[in-house]
Structure formats: structure tokens, C-alpha cells
């Protein structure tokens, strides 16, 4: 072979620079000359480049596989509900995808190799994990894509539900060990399970160290003790219980009827008195999930126009879908006070002379946002709205901007910064507006034109808080008030931001960035 390893180093240097992209014309020419003159150099070049390609492909494959596994793990732990899988890389062309499939088995970085079992003869999966709660698997390995005949599931603690090809479903309660045998049978090595067997899976079998249970369309619980003693209890329908001929002089089927219990041990199958109600209760028949809080987030970075939403002066969709009812009626469809600045990733909002307090000129009011119900809000959930406002402008006295939540212009809560009678100075405020008029506001903190602020309006239980993080000074201040009675339990809230040069005609422009709304919904309700 011509790829001798005693090539002069300068050729390798040239190739390496070429691959690293750190090459000027003179060096490229030097490389060109070397390669043209020497077939061995060319042979070395193509092999060196090939290694470079393989390293790239393998790293990609590895990371793609890792991401996929992470997604699967999250799914199995139930942490992922409505969230989309990781789609950071949109460029998934078929070449890279197929390269990943080919190369992942090689496992250059060892990760894929550790997951691999018997490499050849890929058998089909015969069962699937369908539900899991607080599961701790042995070796921290949840079954994933490998539920083939012979696979032993070892669950230290937690509940797992698996479904067989035939449709039979098992709920495993850890500690338990179950070996998959076929699409309609399994072996319980030790521990407890319950089985629900639809008519389609009639004949479903579970063997145990001392015998087996054959289901005849039913629901039953089964437990195998450390010494192999097997207990079965039939919730509905009936099963046949067999003792293993090798262990007992009395093999043969014993029919176990609804609400009957039986024990299989060295003596054979023995029907039990049905007074062991305490044991029966220990069988877990279904996985009932605890209430799960799932944050649902709506975020706008103002880096792209969103069709079908409120439009700016140029007709670009801002991504915002709502105005606080009772505001902005006279503003044009292409609102000349709005400018979506895609390059900077911000929405520029020019204030108008309006005020929620006393409902002053609200038909011109800029109170923009979204409906919380679109994020699954039903009136009970906690939520938070955040916006970043860099380089805040100087509004004349009583001029104000910030965040709001409300039913309409006469029932809301709002907070942010309000210009004080001191020139060039803001105070932080939070105020309830129960009937078109403000109650006395809460004031705190201080801010100045030019500051960079991040505002958060949050509802937690019965309280609203407004937090202003001043990124210029590094300080953070929070005002907290009880939830206004008029907002309690209301489902149709509109939330967002506002800007108003109240009691002045000097309009100013706010730069709004990174708008985000999160609702902490309770899953399954």
C-alpha cells in the first residue's frame, strides 16, 4: 500500500491546514504542487481527507443519536407532553440521516456501543413501554427500542405499564423483574404485576418459577416471591393456573374464577380463601398520574413577521394577537405606532396620550398582547409575562409603560414605570383598576431614562407581583399585591404590554424585546 507513514511532515502540515481552512494562496499552491508531482502524496491526501469526513459524520451521528435518546428518556419519564422534540437542526437531509444510520452502530465515541446488544439479526420488538411513573431501572437503563424476546426488564421502584403486541397490558410495580418471551407471553421472575387482557389477547401467558397463568380474557394480579411461590388473584373473568410438572407431583390446570385467589408452589396449585383482601389491595391496577404542572410558553423575539397577527405600520405581523378589549378602536389596521424591527429583534412602540385611569382616550390606547386562554389558561393557573425594554426613553410626568393583565379596559391590573414630578426620573408602580379608575397605586424603586429594564408581571396563587430588573444598575425590585377580586377565576384574560404619554402630547418610542408569556397548566385537566 502506498500510504506510508514516513511521509515528510510538511505534506501532512499542508493537508491539515487545508482541512482546517487555514490556508492562503501560496500554501495552496505548495500543496497543489506536491500532490501533482507525487501519486503517493495523492493517495495519502484522499485517505487523510476521508478520515476527516468520517470524524465529521460520526460526531453528527453520535449527537443525533444522543438527542434522540434524550428525547426518548424524557418521554418515558413523562416530563415531555406537548413540547416538540428537539428540532434545532432543520437541515436533516437524507444523506446525513442515512449516514447516521450506517455509522451509529460503529460507536466511535463509545456511547452507541454501550447501548448495543446482540448486533446481528435484529428481532422485532414485541412490547412497548406505554406509561412510567417514578421509575428507577437497573443500570439506569429504561427499556428503549429493545423490547425483544429475551429482554429482562428490571424495575427497582416505580410503576411501569407495558403493552404487548397482542394487546395485553401489564402494570409492573417495582421491585420487579420480567422477561419478555413473545408478543403474547412473559415470565415473571419476581415481584408484582397486574394484567389486563382484552379478548384479542386471550391465551396470554405468564410463567413463574413454579408454573404459569393462562388468561382467558380478564384482569388479574400476580406476585412471585423470592422463593418462587406464585400468588394470583382474579379481578374479573377467569384464568387457568398450572403448576410446573418438574416441581410438583400435581400438575394440570386449575380454573381460578373472578374474585378468587390461588397459590402455586411446590405442592401444586391451591385455591385460597378469598379473605386475603389486604393482599389484593397491594396490586396496582392502573397508573394514575399525579397532577403535573406543565409550563406552556409563548415567546416572541421579533425577528420574523408572523402572518395573521396585529400588523405594524408596514403591514408586518407583530406576532401579537390581541388588544385589551376597550382599547385601540380608532387605531389603523396597520398601526402607525408600531414598527417591527427584524434586524434588531425588537418591536418599537410609540406611546399615545391615553390612560386606563378614568378611561381617557382609550380608543387610541396601545395595550397590546395575547389571550391567556390560547395557552391553556382556565382562570386558575399561575402565569407570568416578561418583556425587556432597553434604553428606556424619557416620558414627561405621569407617562408610563409596562405590563398588564385584564378582562377589558375597565377591569385590569398593570404595572411598570411611571414618570415622576422629578425631571428625568421614574418610579416603579403596580395598580389595580377595578372599574375604569385606579385604586391608589403601590410605588417603589427608581429608574432613569437610558436604563435597560426587564419587567415581569406574575400571578402566583392569590397574588400579583411586578418585578423590575434594572440591568443597568444591577438592582431588582418587586411589588406584590393581592389579586384584584374582579380578576379572580376569570378565564378570558388578555395580557401584554403598554405605553402611554399620559397627560402630555410628547410621544416617545419604546423598544420592546423578548416578549414571553408562560402559563403553568395542570396536565390532564
Amino acid at each position: 500500500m502506498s500510504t506510508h507513514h514516513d511521509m515528510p511532515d510538511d505534506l501532512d502540515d499542508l493537508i491539515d491546514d487545508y482541512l482546517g481552512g487555514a490556508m492562503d494562496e501560496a500554501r495552496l499552491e505548495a500543496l497543489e504542487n506536491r500532490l501533482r508531482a507525487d501519486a503517493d502524496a495523492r493517495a495519502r491526501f484522499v485517505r487523510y481527507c476521508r478520515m476527516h469526513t468520517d470524524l465529521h459524520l460520526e460526531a453528527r451521528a453520535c449527537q443525533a443519536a444522543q438527542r434522540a435518546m434524550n428525547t426518548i428518556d424524557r418521554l418515558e419519564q413523562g416530563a415531555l407532553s406537548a413540547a416538540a422534540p428537539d428540532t434545532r437542526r432543520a437541515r436533516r437531509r437524507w444523506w446525513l440521516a442515512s449516514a447516521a444510520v450506517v455509522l451509529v452502530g460503529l460507536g466511535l465515541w463509545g456511547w452507541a456501543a454501550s447501548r448495543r446488544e446482540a448486533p446481528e439479526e435484529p428481532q422485532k420488538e414485541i412490547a412497548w413501554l406505554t406509561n412510567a411513573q417514578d421509575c428507577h431501572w437497573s443500570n439506569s437503563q429504561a427499556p428503549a427500542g429493545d423490547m425483544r424476546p429475551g429482554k429482562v426488564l428490571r424495575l427497582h421502584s416505580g410503576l411501569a405499564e407495558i403493552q404487548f403486541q397482542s394487546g395485553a397490558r401489564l402494570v409492573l410495580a417495582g421491585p420487579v423483574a420480567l422477561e419478555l418471551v413473545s408478543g403474547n407471553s412473559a415470565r415473571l421472575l419476581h415481584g408484582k404485576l397486574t394484567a389486563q387482557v382484552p379478548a384479542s389477547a386471550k391465551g396470554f401467558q405468564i410463567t413463574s418459577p413454579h408454573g404459569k397463568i393462562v388468561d382467558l380474557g380478564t384482569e388479574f394480579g400476580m406476585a412471585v416471591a423470592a422463593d418462587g411461590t406464585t400468588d394470583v388473584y382474579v379481578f374479573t373473568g377467569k384464568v387457568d393456573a398450572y403448576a410446573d410438572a418438574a416441581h410438583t407431583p400435581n400438575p394440570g390446570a386449575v380454573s381460578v374464577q373472578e374474585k378468587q385467589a390461588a397459590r402455586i408452589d411446590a405442592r401444586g396449585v391451591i385455591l385460597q380463601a378469598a379473605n386475603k383482601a389486604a393482599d389484593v389491595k397491594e396490586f396496582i391496577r392502573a397508573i394514575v398520574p399525579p397532577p403535573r404542572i406543565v409550563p406552556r410558553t409563548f415567546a416572541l423575539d421579533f425577528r420574523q413577521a408572523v402572518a395573521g397577527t396585529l400588523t405594524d405600520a408596514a403591514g408586518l405581523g407583530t406576532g401579537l394577537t390581541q388588544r385589551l378589549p376597550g382599547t385601540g378602536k380608532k387605531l389603523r389596521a396597520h398601526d402607525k405606532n408600531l414598527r417591527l424591527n427584524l434586524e434588531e429583534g425588537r418591536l418599537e412602540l410609540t406611546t399615545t396620550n391615553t390612560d386606563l385611569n378614568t378611561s381617557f382616550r382609550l380608543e387610541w390606547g396601545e395595550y397590546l398582547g395575547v389571550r391567556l386562554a390560547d395557552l391553556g389558561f382556565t382562570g386558575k393557573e399561575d402565569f407570568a409575562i416578561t418583556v425587556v425594554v432597553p434604553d428606556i426613553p424619557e416620558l414627561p410626568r405621569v407617562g408610563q409603560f409596562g405590563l398588564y393583565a385584564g378582562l377589558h379596559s375597565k377591569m385590569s391590573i398593570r404595572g411598570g414605570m411611571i414618570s415622576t414630578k422629578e425631571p428625568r426620573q421614574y418610579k416603579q408602580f403596580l395598580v389595580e383598576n377595578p372599574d375604569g379608575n385606579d385604586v391608589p397605586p403601590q410605588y417603589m424603586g427608581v429608574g432613569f431614562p437610558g436604563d435597560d429594564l426587564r419587567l415581569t408581571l406574575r400571578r402566583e396563587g392569590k397574588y400579583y407581583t411586578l418585578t423590575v430588573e434594572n440591568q443597568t444598575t444591577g438592582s431588582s425590585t418587586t411589588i406584590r399585591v393581592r389579586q384584584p377580586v374582579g380578576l379572580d377565576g376569570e378565564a378570558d384574560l388578555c395580557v401584554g404590554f403598554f405605553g402611554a404619554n399620559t397627560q402630555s402630547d410628547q410621544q416617545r418610542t419604546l423598544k420592546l424585546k423578548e416578549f414571553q408569556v408562560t402559563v403553568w397548566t395542570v396536565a390532564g385537566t
Partner: protein
Amino acid sequence: MTDEQPRKVEFAEYLRQHQSQLFGYIHSLVRDLNDADDVFQQTMAVLWKKFDDFNRRRSFVAWACGVARFEVANFLRARHRQHLYFTDELNLLLIDAQAELAPSELEDRRTALSQCVQKLRARDRQLLEECYGERGVHATAERQGRSTQSIHNSLRRIRRALFECIHRTLVQEAHPELMP
């Protein structure tokens, strides 16, 4: 329409056998994985269009690389990188070198590479994974607080070691009696 299917099957079979060589050739010229992917797609489309012209007695790799060469040139020209591009003469020589690289050797080299990576120090393996993965050299340098040059130097050392190791592995497999 009905005679389209066998042609497609034949084309797919050629590709299956040689896609790795073709992709490697393109990658060696454009040097960026995503760019290589783009050019590969483009080349495939042209190959399929010209498949009737392909002389079945010739080497598919040589023919496909010849087509790819023009696609690469177009691509680099569009990116204003034409000045960092080999001459046509060298390109033809490189296609020959590429065609001599048999799929079985590629396979052996890849397997050997896999073993060799395992022998690296953990730190080096990590660096490879980061730089060759989605993070890339620049972001890795930033994350580690090192200069890009210093990362390139490390990568150069690692690549040398790997190339050397592949060579040794293949020799050892071919002539186990020669090794201590």
C-alpha cells in the same frame, strides 16, 4: 413511465455502493459538512439526469466524481472562493486517487478509526466530539477559553495520531506475524 423503475433501481444500486466515496470526494473539496451535503444533493440530481449517458463499462465513481467536480466548482465560485481551489489537472488526478480507494478499504479504515478513537485520551476524544460535532471549532475555542489556533494545533496532533494508528492497525491485521 413503466421503464423508469428498473433504471431507478440500477441508479440506486450504484449509489448505494459508491455514495460514501462520492461524498468523501465532495467533502474533501468543499471541506464543510453542510456544504458537502448541499453539493452532494445537487450532484445527485445531475447524475440522475445524465444517467443515460453513463457508459456502464466505465467506473461509476470516476464518472460521478467528474460530475461532482463541476458542481463543486460552481458552488465555490458562487461563494467567491474560486481562488482557493485546485487546478483542473490536479482534480482529475485526485479523482483517480479517489476511485482507487476501494469501498472495502474505506470500510476497514473506518473500523480501524473507531478502535483508534477509543484509544485516545478522554480529553482528546472530548475535543474531537466537540469540534467535529455541531459546536464546531470556533465555539469550542470560546467555551474552553482557548484560541482557535491552539484548538487547531490540538486537532492536528490528534488527527496525526489517528492516521498513524489506522495505518498500524491495518498493517497488523494484514500481517499479524510482523507485529511484536
